[in-house]
């Protein structure tokens, strides 16, 4: 993966090239051994390029190859390896390069303006809504439904930013306190500056291979054993924002495939999508890693720390590493891979890990993508 930064000078195509080159080098493979390419990138509006997949495919190594762009908004980063999985698991291809890229910095004056376009042009845009506003609604609903305080949610931001100090690509690793979070700038109550991840530029990539091809390159493989994705109704006003049902459905799809019956026991750790600190808690519950309303307790008790019983976001998450939408999700899958291989360096969790999960969230509060990996 590349650095995640507020603004990188490289173009989106160059970022895709950097990440895919790194993946090939790490895999000790050459481009000619790649049979297919999956490109994941979220709204075209960020890069300012229509048919963004066409623009990126050259950087991703897709010229002369079957290249598919896949896209489920913020869920794209975890959905891209899912699409890569079906390329290989179908038997159609032996190898697949998966590249996720996002370049949010071109949008002026601020990337937030792109999010205006995810609202329905007839029913919602006339209200003058922003994404931060709608997430503030969801955060408030979650707090109200379970009696959760802002300070309890702030503990997630503290944890993840601290974790990110050990990530070489991190944009916003920092040692902060709950008080720092509470004092930070109010954006849309109850969302404050330190509750939310930054806009970023960055890319990540990985190479998937069928078993017989993989055996030529490594005797220490990591397997994809469960995939799931789900998108809820577009009418968010019809949903109870206190609980992400779409994520539970996506999780159950993945757990069924991976034969996971008790996720807290059968999994060892998780990279959970955290564009906001409350979303880590929200998603833990949707993933059935905590009872509804109880994820804050696990955080408070240190269960989700790197040395805890069930580490969550040992990478530092989006809050600490950064949030170039699609690349952020793939960063999480990469982190699960590195943790399982014992290659996470200072971020390595204390316990022995054999199975991990990565999850991302997208569209308008409505999409869950889940992937489980094991040694």
């Amino acid at each position: 993966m590349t650095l995640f930064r507020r603004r990188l000078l490289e173009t989106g195509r160059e970022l895709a090239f950097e990440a895919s080159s790194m993946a090939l080098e790490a895999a000790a493979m050459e481009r000619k051994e790649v049979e297919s390419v999956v490109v994941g990138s979220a709204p075209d509006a960020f890069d300012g390029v229509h048919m963004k997949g066409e623009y990126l495919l050259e950087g991703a190594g897709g010229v002369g190859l079957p290249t598919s762009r896949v896209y489920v908004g913020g869920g794209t980063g975890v959905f891209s390896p899912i699409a890569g999985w079906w390329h290989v698991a179908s038997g159609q291809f032996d190898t697949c390069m998966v590249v996720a890229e996002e370049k949010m910095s071109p949008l002026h004056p601020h990337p937030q303006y792109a999010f205006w376009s995810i609202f329905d042009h007839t029913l919602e845009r006339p209200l003058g809504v922003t994404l931060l506003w709608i997430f503030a609604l969801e955060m408030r609903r979650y707090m109200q439904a379970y009696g959760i305080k802002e300070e309890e949610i702030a503990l997630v931001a503290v944890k993840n930013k601290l974790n990110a100090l050990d990530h070489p690509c991190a944009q916003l690793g920092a040692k902060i306190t709950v008080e720092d979070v509470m004092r930070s700038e109010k954006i849309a109550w109850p969302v404050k500056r330190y509750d939310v991840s930054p806009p970023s530029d960055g890319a990540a990539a990985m190479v998937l291979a069928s078993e017989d091809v993989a055996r030529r390159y490594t005797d220490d493989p990591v397997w994809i054993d469960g995939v799931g994705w789900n998108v809820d109704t577009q009418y968010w006003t019809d949903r109870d924002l206190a609980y992400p049902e779409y994520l539970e459905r996506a999780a159950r799809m993945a757990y069924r495939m991976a034969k996971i019956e008790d996720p807290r026991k059968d999994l060892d750790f998780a990279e959970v999508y955290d564009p906001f600190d409350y979303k880590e808690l929200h998603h833990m519950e949707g993933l059935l890693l905590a009872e509804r309303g109880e994820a804050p307790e696990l955080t408070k008790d240190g269960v989700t720390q790197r040395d805890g019983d069930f580490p969550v976001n040992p990478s530092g998450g989006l809050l600490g590493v950064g949030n170039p939408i699609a690349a952020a999700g793939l960063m999480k899958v990469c982190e699960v891979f590195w943790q399982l291989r014992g290659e996470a360096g200072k971020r390595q969790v204390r316990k022995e890990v054999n199975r991990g999960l990565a999850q991302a969230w997208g569209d308008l509060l409505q999409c869950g993508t889940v992937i489980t990996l094991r040694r």
Partner: protein
Amino acid sequence: MPSPAKLIYRTGFLAQKMRRPPVGIVGVGAAGFRPALRGVSTRELMYQAASLAYLDAGVDPRKEVDSFVTTSEDLWEGWSITDEMVPDQLGGAGRPVCTIPGDAVTGLGNAAMMIEAGAAQVVAVEAHSKASDVLDKEAVERMAQEPTLVRPLGMGRAALAGLEMSAFFGASGFGLDDCDAVIASARKRGSLNPLASFAGRGGREGGVASSPLRRVDIAGYADAAVVVVLASAEWARKKGRQAVWLEAAAWSSSLPWFDGGGAALAGYATASFERAARKAELRDGLGSVDLVEADDSYSFKLLQHVLSISRDWKEAEGVLDGRGPALNPSGGSLAVGNLLEASAMHRVYEAVIQLRGEAGRRQIERARRALVQSWRGIPTATGGVALLSVSP
């Protein structure tokens, strides 16, 4: 030294080597097909096509469709994250839904892989055009151009197409007379197709767009939606559904002509055809198919595409002269309209109804195998080939 970084899926090694069970198209639905559909929203258009497809397939999407794919590009819609806006009208709310932006061949190919990988038994793939809602299509099209080196040149699609047309004529020996023949054939075939809004265009109206490209060489935009329902062979057998079998779906991207790619042949079409032909074990090139639906969003592109998927000049000439498989029995985009990313899905729809014997006055006799060739349009060099047949 760290081991190579790979994420590996344990397939079932033998699955790759054995012939995989086929995936079939068990339902199709098409709605709209007019230059401008006023009073019908994009969502309503999708709903109409989806309803027809599910009726055709005999499925309840809330229970029997495992995954839903939309192939739209955001900027044509005027919103971001298209899959966010589609679940309800497709019957996919609370189900696996995604966007695979591209043409029908990529969408169908990925849907087929979902089925082959065991992630789904039944997948609905949707494509649509509501081009009439787009106030400034040129502006959207320009945004597809590479932003650093190409877009600053200030060329619209007509200029790029005109330059490619000129280069193609020089490299291939084709000329405007051949384009006139393409247009005449499109109108003749389209006159038999109730979905063709532009078959009645006459003469050389409109003048020059960007010499040598004339306005008459460019397919007009239209609004439409098409939904295709794919299923595994096992599902189709269990439910007693007749299927048109997807023998192969292959796609590729070459370099655009202005980026170093050639102009005589469309590399993406050749590569896609070769891969599809290998998968389907075609033994006689285009002689193995009964009809071809190829992209003709510009008249010269049909010539280029046919040349690119033919074994040689003789075969290409035969197809263009009507001595080979029937070419664009629907009338193609020149008669039906440029349906944006739904253009290829319309070709798939035409192929399916032809193979079922449901094409009415334009039915190709004894149609058993069809080839659909697609192109994503300017400024891309991406396209695909799908092979469909009545036998698995």
